[in-house]
């Protein structure tokens, strides 16, 4: 019997439905024939409440839910715009303690989104500065500074528009 190459040996193993050893990474494994020929999905099943197990998971889920609060407040703003179509007689801006309370919750969520997302800027932005790059902490502070400036400018315009 002539000596077989590694690929021939693997093919022979598949034909025989036997286990074989992986050659590329040097890890021996007994792999059934089907896994070689067909991809098999291994869905990760976890309970619905997996995000309550750790504080980090909870904060992650809270960060994801910030979009819900922001969009909900935007829907309320759309209601105001729709009311404005009825003319001066039919227009009534949203107000009252309930609206302010909802807005406070939405504001907290929006700030949480801003805080978490702008904090990432220092991680993924690489600004070359000579032989080095701008420190991530500096980028993060610049983003928060920009947030403050933009907030003041927009708030001034909104107030000026109503004066």
């Amino acid at each position, binding site marked *: 019997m002539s000596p077989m190459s*590694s*690929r021939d040996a*693997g*093919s022979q193993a*598949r034909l025989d439905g036997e286990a074989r050893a*992986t050659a*590329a*990474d040097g890890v021996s494994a007994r792999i059934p024939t089907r896994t*070689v*020929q*067909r*991809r098999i999905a291994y869905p990760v099943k*976890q309970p*619905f409440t997996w995000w309550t197990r750790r504080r980090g998971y909870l904060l992650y*889920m809270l960060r*994801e*839910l*910030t*979009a*819900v609060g*922001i*969009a909900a*407040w*935007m829907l*309320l*703003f*759309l209601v*105001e*715009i*729709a009311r*404005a*179509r009825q003319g001066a007689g039919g*227009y009534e*801006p949203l*107000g*009252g303690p309930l*609206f*302010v309370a909802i*807005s*406070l919750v*939405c*504001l907290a969520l*929006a*700030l949480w*989104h*801003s805080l978490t*997302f*702008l904090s990432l*800027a220092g991680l993924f932005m690489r600004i070359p500065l000579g032989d080095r790059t701008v420190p991530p902490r500096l980028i993060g502070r610049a983003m928060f500074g*920009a*947030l403050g400036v*933009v*907030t003041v400018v*927009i*708030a001034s315009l*909104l*107030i000026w*528009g*109503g*004066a």
Partner: protein
Amino acid sequence: MTSHDSTGSSARHAPRKGPNRVLGLIWAGFATAAVVGAFIVPAHILIQGVLGPLGVPSFDRHYDTFARALSNPLVKLYLLVLFACSFYMLAFRVWYVVRELGVPSKVGVGFVSFGLSGAGLIIAGYLLFTGP
């Protein structure tokens, strides 16, 4: 179609060639919307939602000032961007979170979340560009 895996064996399903450009575009859109939203959304909620009802002047507290602002094309465009960023963020994050909570359908959840987001944006555009 066959391909060779790391062990040199062949498989029936070849991996997708090149990057997933559609997913890349979706992610790029999310990054843009999230950054723009992070900058401009808090000011609106603070002034219009909290301080305005408490007595601070705001452009939406009276019909005259609100209608005058909404009649400006630049304001319309700006507000459309504001709504687009907010609804896109919602669609993208819901798309991921719902699957992370155990719903297996990637395409179905994406269709629903981005569809509702698009519908919201269309309504916003209609209200803005056909209003006062």
